């Protein structure tokens, strides 16, 4: 299992591995929004939580179709399915590797982008916390979507259509945490709901993903 994680991370960092793709997208989006909306601090500060969360979500979406597609194409998914590792473990590790290469960098650079969007200082902590709590759910749900579309040629668009509706609760509560944090309001409820969604997704979805992969490999 650890070998699989190490391999996936190594592949992501090597040439053509796609590491930094989501991060670059996130950066570009946060730089473009002030250019498009105009430099008024009030407006930017008001839309910053939503923009940052939508940006993080789309950045996660960008690299989802690579999770299983590459392994399916070169045959290693078949070989992993016959290897002495449970498929539930394989999909969990894949989701973890996706989070480490996509979600975690987003969490780490988000305060810098908050600065670009005039996010009020008291919201930085909540922004980092909400992304740290919410992005694992994005990776796990995305892995499920990738499992559903594995084997489809150019399944990326279908994958986006399948996964985006499932991302809505995470987006709503994640952006709500930051927005309430920016206004100095109580954030306990959205934080709890966000953490609950992530915990539920992490606990249950790997079983669904593993089953779907087994069916798709037939």
């Amino acid at each position, binding site marked *: 299992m650890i070998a699989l994680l190490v391999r996936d991370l*190594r592949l992501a960092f090597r040439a053509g591995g796609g590491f930094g793709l989501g991060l670059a997208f996130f950066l570009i989006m946060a730089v473009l929004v002030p250019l498009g909306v105009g430099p008024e601090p009030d407006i930017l500060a008001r839309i910053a939580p939503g923009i940052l969360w939508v940006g993080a979500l789309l950045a996660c979406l960008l690299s989802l179709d690579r999770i299983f597609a590459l392994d399916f*194409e070169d*045959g*290693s998914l*078949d070989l992993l399915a*016959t290897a002495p590792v449970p498929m539930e473990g394989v999909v969990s590790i894949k989701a973890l590797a996706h989070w480490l290469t996509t979600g975690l960098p987003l969490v780490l650079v988000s305060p810098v982008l908050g600065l670009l969007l005039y996010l009020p200082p008291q919201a930085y902590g909540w922004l980092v916390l909400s992304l740290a709590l919410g992005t694992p759910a994005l990776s796990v749900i995305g892995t499920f979507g990738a499992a559903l579309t594995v084997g489809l040629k150019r399944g990326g668009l279908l994958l986006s259509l399948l996964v985006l509706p499932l991302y809505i609760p995470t987006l709503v509560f994640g952006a709500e945490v930051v927005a309430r944090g920016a206004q100095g309001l109580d954030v306990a409820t959205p934080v709890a709901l966000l953490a609950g969604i992530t915990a539920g997704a992490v606990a249950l979805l790997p079983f669904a993903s593993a089953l779907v992969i087994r069916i798709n*490999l*037939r």
Partner: protein
Amino acid sequence: MRLNVTNLACARGGFALLEGVGFSLSPAQALVLRGPNGCGKTTLLRTVAGLQPALAGEVSCPPESIAYAAHADGLKTTLSVAENLSFWAAVYGTRGIDAALEQMNLRALSGRAAQNLSAGQKRRLGLARLIVTGRPVWVLDEPTVSLDAVSVALFGDVVRAHLAGGGMALIATHIDLGLPEADILDLTPFKATIPHHGSGQFDEAFL
């Protein structure tokens, strides 16, 4: 320790291909599957390897004893030969890739990235994975595609060494592997005659 296949029927994409297939493998025995293109060799091997369910019949062998090698080698092109093999060694919990590198004549290539290998070298690396798994039953689908004559002979030796160590091999191939001791099973007589009625039904994907 035997691999028993009894009255097996299997389908691909909803079409029944084979039925009533039965054979048995005991240690140090190899079985070569033959038959024209599309007769169901790959489907049979995937069923034996547990990648797809059988329509009927059963495959019995001890759990976690099968190492499967498909048409695709499952190589990661940006990893080196040694890294590719080490990964599978770690997955299967076996130690050391030296023996596999030696037997498949890959030692000189061990530091090279898999994307810079020739087709035959890639295939040799894919087959070296079998040695690394340490599993007794090898299920091989066209193992000699793109290998030159020397490498085919090399592979024949590797299979023979595996059999001598008490292993088994089930091989689908069109060419002579230089394994005169292997039994040959022609799949043509097992062609399915009864259409598979489950085809096209919505529930099929979930059963």
